């Protein structure tokens, strides 16, 4: 495709936030160019094919019901109609072995009947969650919230917190508000997935973008964001300069500031703030393909398994893996496709994987695969013989694919939200979207954040004379 040399907006990166932001701006009539360095759109909403007819989904383990509403509002009915519930989420560890849909009613029942928590206590906790507002100034941590709500009940804390640690890398030291928002999202109606797989979802999104007039370029890495007199002038891609009035960067927040723009363009106080931003951790995954004709017994949609005696977030991401979540993909998830696949995910630390020699790296990956299959055998005896493809990804894999610092899987900790939002106060026309602040992470968080930032960008474009008010708005 020939590119124009001028756009209203260049979107850098096609993660779910970049895609949704681009779509929204195009629907408002803006001329949008979307650049993605990879051959596929979607960013971490990724999939890949392997010999033996396997298709693996990377981040399609589950998202909240709210995704359905957001897809209806910001994408289309077809996408919305493909969202289906995953109702059997199993947690198995030395403290308990339960299955739940993680809907409010079902979780209430479990807490009262299985965990023997007084009903008033359960009720008070859920009411507390409901009342949590983004704006309520509170420095309470999640640990404090859980301890206050269920004193001394480490098993209950584990039930409530461990799935969230898997989902977004957050820990009890993170602000209670981040737990409250994410947990309430799931509680609302449980856990959902996209029937048809990530590839279908992204194909539908691409069609929608094209219908709305977005110019899309894959294998196109933006090299620089050009700033003149404190304002966006354009970007460069493949050595070519493209002029635009605004840039929406879906690249990693710090990568955007330090590499794509360059720190000389920012104020010292902003750089200080940016310097304090922590990443939310990374992941390892093991992808297991089941041989054609073989089936996997249908016993759970998601399994969170851990041999740790207690919930321990540091140990959850230790290299010696003790805790994994397994996603079971059956032909039900991909109608028309007859293969089963299993994807095991664990939280991981960049430092544990970054500095290994090639040999050590390969050996450690094999060890991870071996441990994962042994773990799975505890639930599905004989599964080893049905596997005909096995492969691992590590923080290095995610870093290479996305360019995210430290292979960040879930974006930044809470402080990243403010840095992301304030970027447009630093450079007129520069906006950032993507996983930040824990609450804007995950499929739902990034889709919504894409819209939130697109709106601020639209306001900026619509009223250039009021550029000083073009700052982003917290919702």
């Amino acid at each position: 495709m020939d590119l124009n040399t001028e756009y209203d907006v260049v979107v850098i990166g096609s993660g779910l936030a970049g895609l949704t932001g681009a779509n929204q701006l195009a629907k408002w009539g803006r001329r949008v160019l979307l650049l993605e360095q990879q051959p596929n759109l979607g960013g971490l909403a990724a999939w890949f094919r392997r010999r033996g007819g396997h298709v693996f989904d990377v981040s399609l383990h589950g998202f909240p019901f709210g995704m359905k509403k957001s897809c209806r509002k910001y994408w289309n009915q077809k996408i919305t109609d493909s969202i289906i519930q995953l109702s059997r989420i199993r947690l198995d560890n030395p403290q308990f072995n339960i299955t739940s849909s993680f809907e409010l009613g079902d979780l209430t029942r479990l807490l009262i009947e299985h965990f023997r928590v007084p009903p008033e206590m359960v009720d008070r906790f859920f009411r507390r969650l409901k009342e949590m507002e983004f704006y309520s100034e509170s420095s309470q941590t999640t640990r404090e919230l859980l301890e206050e709500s269920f004193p001394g009940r480490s098993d209950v804390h584990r039930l409530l917190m461990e799935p969230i640690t898997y989902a977004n890398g957050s820990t009890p030291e993170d602000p209670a508000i981040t737990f409250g928002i994410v947990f309430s999202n799931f509680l609302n109606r449980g856990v959902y997935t996209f029937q048809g797989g990530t590839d279908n979802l992204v194909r539908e999104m691409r069609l929608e973008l094209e219908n709305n007039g977005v110019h899309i370029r894959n294998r196109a890495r933006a090299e620089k964001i050009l700033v003149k007199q404190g304002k966006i002038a354009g970007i460069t891609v493949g050595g070519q300069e493209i002029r635009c009035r605004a840039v929406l960067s879906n690249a990693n927040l710090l990568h955007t500031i330090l590499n794509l723009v360059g720190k000389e363009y920012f104020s010292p106080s902003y750089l200080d703030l940016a310097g304090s931003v922590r990443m939310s951790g990374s992941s390892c995954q093991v992808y297991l393909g089941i041989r054609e004709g073989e089936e996997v017994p249908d016993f759970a949609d998601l399994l969170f398994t851990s041999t740790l005696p207690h919930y321990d977030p540091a140990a959850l991401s230790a290299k010696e893996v003790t805790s994994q979540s397994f996603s079971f993909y059956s032909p039900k998830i991909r109608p028309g496709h007859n293969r089963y696949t299993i994807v095991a995910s664990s939280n991981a630390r960049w430092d544990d994987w970054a500095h290994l020699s090639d040999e050590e790296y390969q050996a450690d990956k094999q060890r991870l695969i071996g441990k994962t299959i042994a773990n799975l055998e505890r639930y599905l005896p004989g599964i080893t013989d049905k596997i005909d493809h096995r492969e691992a990804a590590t923080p290095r894999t995610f870093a290479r694919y996305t360019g995210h610092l430290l292979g960040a899987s879930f974006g930044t900790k809470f402080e990243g939200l403010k840095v992301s939002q304030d970027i447009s106060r630093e450079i007129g026309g520069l906006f950032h979207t993507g996983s930040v602040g824990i609450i804007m992470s995950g499929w739902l968080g990034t889709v919504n954040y894409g819209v939130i930032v697109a709106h601020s960008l639209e306001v900026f474009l619509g009223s250039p004379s009021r550029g000083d008010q073009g700052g982003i708005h917290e919702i």
Partner: protein
Amino acid sequence: MTREEIIKLIFAIIAEIAPDEDLSHVAPDVPLREQLDLDSMDFLDIVMELRKRHGVEVPEADYPELVTLDKCVAYLGPKLKK
């Protein structure tokens, strides 16, 4: 615009954002979010639609002005005059 017209316009927007909501019993002086299943994204949608359909810009600092129907009428009235 009259009060009725403003309320109609707000309802038209909400009906699209939250098609399952019953708007026939909304009390004008009670926060919309206490009566309807609207979250903060729905609220932003109302702001975005006001901008798109009616050219009205609601800066973030003014979001509290849209909390109830009565407040919407008071706030949007002068902006929607034509």
